[in-house]
């Protein structure tokens, strides 16, 4: 998992992401995020990197038990 900056233009990305949520209600925004998540995950592809990302995102909320492979 990359933790150093890897965007070609991070500010532009952030602004675009916010813009994409514009005019959506909470449910639609959640749906947009979920779609985006799956699209991005497919760009990453690598299972080990994705697992690290999932774990890193979850860290805020304490431990969880990943499914047995």
């Amino acid at each position, binding site marked *: 998992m990359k933790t150093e900056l890897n965007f070609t233009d991070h500010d532009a990305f952030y602004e675009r992401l916010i813009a994409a949520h514009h005019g959506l209600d909470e449910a639609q925004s959640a*749906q947009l995020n*979920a*779609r985006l*998540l*799956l699209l991005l995950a497919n760009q990453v592809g690598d299972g080990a990197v994705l697992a690290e990302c999932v774990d890193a995102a979850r860290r805020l909320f304490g431990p969880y038990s990943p*499914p*047995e*492979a």
Partner: protein
Amino acid sequence: MSDTALQPGGYILPEYEFTAPGDLTADEVRRYPVVIVGAGLSGLALACDLAERGVATVVLDDDNTIGVRGASSRGIVYAQKTLEMMDRLGIYERIRAKGVVWSVGKTLAGSEVVYEFDASSTSDSRQPPFINLQQFYLEWFMVDRVIEIGRTDLRWKSKVVGFETLADGARIEVETPAGRYVLEADWVCDCSGVNSFIRDCLRLDTHQARGIDRWCISDVRFKEPLPIERWTWVEAPFNDNRAVWQHLMADDVWRLDFQMGPETDIEHVSRPEVAAERVRRQLGEDVEFELVWVGPYSYRAQLIDNFRAGRTLFLGDSAHAMSPFGARGGNSGIQDADNLGWKLALVLSGRAPEALLDSYSAERRPAAQFNIMTTRRTARFLQPESPAEKLLRDAAISLAKEHPFARSLCNTGRLSNSYIYGQPPTSRAQRHKVRGVAVGEAVQNVPVGLPDGQAGTLVDLFRNGPAFVGIWSGALPALAAAVIRLANREAPVLRMLELGRAALGLSVLEDPAGKLGAALGAARGKPIFWLLRPDMHLAARIENPDAAKVSRALRGALHGRLQPERA
């Protein structure tokens, strides 16, 4: 799981007579080499396999017919590896004639197809990827075959009610219409299904996990021609946006399987008029149909820690249970028998050590674990357990309509393939680089020219001959003398052949279509030896082989070891 009978649906099933066995009146307790408990898919496949290998068995079953009482069918989809075994056992032609061959599967959300596969493109086997057939027909064919071979003592209406482990076997108490008796067995194969009495007597933990999902099957007969494909709706508008299966079986009967809400009143939804109304919503008001059978079910996952407990071996649902998604239950029970049969036969004849039987559990338990994991993932996709899960599923479905990658995420069942023994599942996904089958993987039943000049398929080499088949390719003639000596010495357990060209003086296996060479990963001019086990899984692949290396690989295989590539 409960199975409720509605009506026989026009199926006329055989009933088998109970014949009082001599044990009932004998003065002493009789002892048998192998007793199989349960005449379901697993028990019958094992009895049939052992009979083919010349091993006599006693089979005890508490019922006097095939299938589940009430003429229902549970399993419907039989996968290629199962069908290949049935070819070896001599009943494939009947399955082919009665069943429905299919290869296209579609996943729908609403009225849109979001995912589609055609399994026929990856197959060089004589057997198609799948045949649909009511489970009781397959059981019926196996019973007929077992009777035809004539080595199996099939005892109907014989319920195991007592079980005691002995140092060298077990003592079993049997209840029959003519009273109780006791018999002893050197080896017991428990194939008595998900509620196994023997397993529970031995207090083996099944690590049970029950699913909350509820389903209701409605098998129907109707004239409307539908495509002979497997259709699965993740969200069917005609079933309150819950899942539905649509699949053709033999006798023009369709399996329609409806997902119910978790809180459903099962009694109510299985009432014929309620079931008929559901079917009408799917097919339309003006389609005439006949309800053949209605039955609700739920599922659970179970897995015991070791499929061998001394002289008792566990096969099929008694060892492992899973949800039906992906048709893995019956197929894996049959493949348990495919794995165990030859091992038990070799141990009984003294040609292999008892340790070989440990490899049965070592190989089949990971296969079951893999099946449980795979079916669990499907179950979870079909029954999201939280709003967050539902959100992710909605995202996957909506993306699937636009982007190919997301179609694969719509998991309505991953149909069963044969398992690759001895490899962690992760390396399975990565092993595309390897040419030909990997060690531990099954070779498909590809066409070959048999040594007697007949056209045949790989399975033909495994019918009556000795256990293993060894194939030489590109061998140096200088090895001939040592190889022939080896061939003579190991003849009872190993039959050796040469691929395409006689350099060693062994019989020649022709490969006119090049399918076997491709399956094995043969390379022109490169000397390679392949050792195939009786279940057609590759036991060893040896580059630059000689008689000593082959002999070592065979010894290893007789101890249940696979020879890693390039070892």
